[in-house]
């Protein structure tokens, strides 16, 4: 007869044995799996090298990191990268009409989440990108699906003129913008249009409801679409506050009397996605480019510009001020399905 302790010990041994067995088994089975994946990726890289060329259509006009991408891919893999930049709707329409006309000239699309989602649902211009080794390192809020690969995000805060806004008066919350002291003193990107203004409107409505937006309407916001000019207007002292300002402006405005404020609730953001085009002439080079963009080097390049990296990789050498702001909580982004409805609401509240 065995004692209860013996039985318990045996059960424990049995469980341990089972766990060890499972672990050993998974190692035994996953090792060839990983090796096979590595092997497949190696073949893809070789095929990409053979293609030697890749074309990217980007909706981020003038993104300096595109130059890094061109140089790096050519230096590392001997692949030349052609990048065509235009505004989001222009890139979308070019891709759509090219696909409809059977002109397959582009391999990868880089566009905001809203536009990319509409392209998936309405234009049907993408193919699944397949396995990408770095996809597992994406942050939880930037998960890839079989079509979209998040690549970076633009985060938005408040820009204040440091000569006109004392530190104690700085808005600490998005709700502070409704304070009567700021009436007639806020310059704003247009809430009724896609972009920073649209995403801020969406997120505020999502979190606080319509009331807050109606209070803001009473603040006599001055809408202006010329974002680079708007930032300079704040620096010159035309208005004390500008909403929403992209974190990418911080490095460019260094030396001017302005400050980026991150409200405590967090920052709205617009995610950018990469997607592989149907009938891409260089599909392997396209996938290699997508992988490279979520790799550490390009994520570092994005972070240096004030864009939010989408992977959890540790980054070094980023401007401390930008890095600190980049750690701010994310408040939310738009849902493509509701975006047009919200833009209509914005036109109603801000006629």
């Amino acid at each position, binding site marked *: 007869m065995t004692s209860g302790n013996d039985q318990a010990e045996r059960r424990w041994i049995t469980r341990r044995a089972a766990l060890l067995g499972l672990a050993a088994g998974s190692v035994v089975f996953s090792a060839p799996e990983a090796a096979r994946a590595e092997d497949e990726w190696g073949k893809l890289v070789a095929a990409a090298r053979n293609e030697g060329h890749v074309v990217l259509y980007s909706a981020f006009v003038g993104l300096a990191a595109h130059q890094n991408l061109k140089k790096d891919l050519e230096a590392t893999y001997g692949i030349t990268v052609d990048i065509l930049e235009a505004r989001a*709707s222009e890139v979308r329409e070019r891709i759509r009409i090219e696909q409809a006309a059977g002109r397959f000239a582009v391999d990868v699309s880089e566009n905001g989440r809203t536009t990319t989602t509409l392209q998936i649902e309405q234009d049907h211009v993408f193919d699944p990108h397949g396995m990408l080794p770095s996809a597992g390192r994406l942050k939880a809020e930037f998960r890839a699906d079989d079509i979209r690969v998040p690549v970076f995000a633009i985060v938005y805060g408040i820009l204040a003129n440091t000569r006109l806004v004392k530190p104690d008066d700085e808005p600490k919350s998005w709700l502070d913008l409704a304070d009567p002291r700021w009436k007639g003193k806020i310059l704003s990107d247009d809430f009724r249009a896609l972009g920073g203004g649209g995403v801020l409107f969406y997120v505020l409505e999502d979190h606080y409801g319509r009331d807050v937006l109606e209070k803001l309407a009473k603040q006599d916001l001055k809408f202006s679409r010329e974002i680079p000019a708007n930032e300079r207007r704040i620096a010159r002292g035309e208005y004390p506050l500008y909403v929403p300002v992209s974190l990418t402006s911080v490095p460019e405005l260094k030396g001017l009397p302005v400050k980026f404020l991150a409200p405590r609730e967090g920052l709205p953001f617009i995610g950018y996605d990469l997607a592989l085009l149907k009938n891409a002439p260089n599909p392997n080079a396209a996938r290699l480019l997508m992988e490279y963009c979520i790799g550490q080097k390009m994520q570092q390049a994005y972070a240096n510009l004030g864009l939010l990296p989408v992977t959890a990789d540790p980054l070094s050498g980023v401007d401390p001020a930008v890095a600190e702001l980049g750690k701010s909580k994310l408040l939310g982004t738009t849902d493509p399905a509701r975006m047009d409805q919200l833009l209509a609401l914005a036109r109603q509240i801000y006629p």
Partner: protein
Amino acid sequence: MERSWQEKAECANPARSFASAKPTGAEKFCARPSLIELAENLYPQQVNMAISADERVEDPGRVPFAAGLRARLRVLEGTAASRTAGVALLVVILAFLSIYPLSMLLYGSLHSTPPGMAGVFNLDGYQAVLTRQNLVMLLNTVGISLAKTFPSLVIAVLLAWILARTDTPFRGALEVLVTLPFFIPPILTAMAWGMLGNPQVGLLNQLYQWATGSSNSPINVYSYGGVIWHMMQYSIPFMFLLIVDAFRAMDPSLEEAARMCGASRWRTFRTVTLLLILPALSSAAILSFIRGIENFESPLFFGSPAGIRVITTDIYDSINQRSPPQYQYATAVSFVIMALLLLIVLLQWKLLRGRNFTTVSGKGYSPTVMKLGKWRWATFAFCVLFFAVTVVLPVGQLLIGSFFKFFGFYQWDMLTLEHYRAVFGSSEFWRGFGNTMLLGLAGASLTMVLGGVVAYISVRTKWRGRMLIDVMAWLPWMMPGIVLGVGFLWGFALLPHAIPIYGTIWALLLAYISLGTPLSVQVMSSAYSQLSYDIEECSRVHGASWLQTMRHIMIALAWPSFAVGWVLVFFGIMRELSASVLLYSVGSEVLSVVLLKLWTNGNAEQVSVIGLMMIVLVVLFRWVQLKVIKARISTL
């Protein structure tokens, strides 16, 4: 001594009466059954003179002139088929350049989805246009355009008269300088005026407050006034360029005759001078008015913050700021505007039809200038004031700003040449510059040739189909550029793959020709309207071939307008963005796309460096052009 056929043509021709409804020689010419009879009936003296001259020095192997004339005229009579073929060719070219992209857009306006997508035909787009809100917006747009066109026209006429017809000092230099605002990218002048005229910290308001001790800010560019003022800075030099040569090409004997009959200077100016340049004047005003309707930058920059909405910003929003883009609505609105603008153009045609605006006849003339006495310094001061306000103030801001790290922050420690180094060291800039120069030179030349031919047929002949090609050439001007760019994209992309246009530099070239043709046709039409039909007929009667007549008479006399049109089209190409951004491909980037990238990225100072380069180019072009015009006029 033998007189050349040009000399015969130029000296044998009486000046025509002006502004009369009497049919001209050419009208009679076309109405009669026989060209030979016409030549003999209309120009018996010239024909006789020509015959005698020809008989005196007849080249060996040449047929006698009379026989040659008959043969030539027979050939002309027998070329109806070739004329029809020529017109048909023009119809095909213009159909491809204007009707084809417009038909794509028409499809877009009548279909629930853009070309290449499954959908249904419906009128939803047009139904969406018909709202009270859109009507108010349309009236707002028309009001703004009218409010900027009339004062601009008055100032442009005044400037043109001062600089072409008076002895105002330094008018050669002033003529170049007053046109400069037109060639500066609007976004730059908008930024400069934003710094000068904002109500909070604008330099002009600060100056006023310093001078008066008041705390008021009388200037606010973010208003209707700001939108109109910014537009005027472009429409004044634009209209000036279109009408100044009409003033210059005017035979002063007509004004002298009025003065001798007792008319005052003002009455002469009003009833003779202005009437004679009515084609140029009305064309310039209509072109400018239409451009005002389609203007985008001024309302976006100065209107949006003041809650001012116009039709173009609405179209832009419907394409670029809706999710998904509403192409059906945008194209439908554009066609409604197009129909309204077409009515205005037809009205102009009705106004001008049957009237004679000939000022350049075979009778020799010298464009004399009016002696203003001491008043010439007043006119000089007016031009300098205009130059100071529209050029020195904004361009001065750009020039100073380009040497500092940031616009508007003029501190010693921010002085830098970094922006110049960045621009001149950028391979992308040089590639864009090279492509733009190539496209500008080729595009402007081809556009002016096409416009010249269309205008000639439209104004100088009674050929069947001339109205059609004139309308076809006009159409692209009436379609807002943002939408027309989409029409080119759809049209070129859907061409058969065997036609290698899409994705090449040819797509840009063709789009530029299409966009520039209305302007070139108007410029050349105004110039041709001023030329007496007799000169051309006399040249032909005296033995010159059609090509010789074109080269030595029509082109020689109309070429100053050709040169002005060329410069306008060239710089139009340099600034064009709406079609460029949709049609450029990797390697064929153009300057406007490079500017867009720099601007979007917050490099306003680098954009102004490029803007200043463009101003230098303009000064160079205009200086050469005016030198050549002066040299040519002295030989006329």
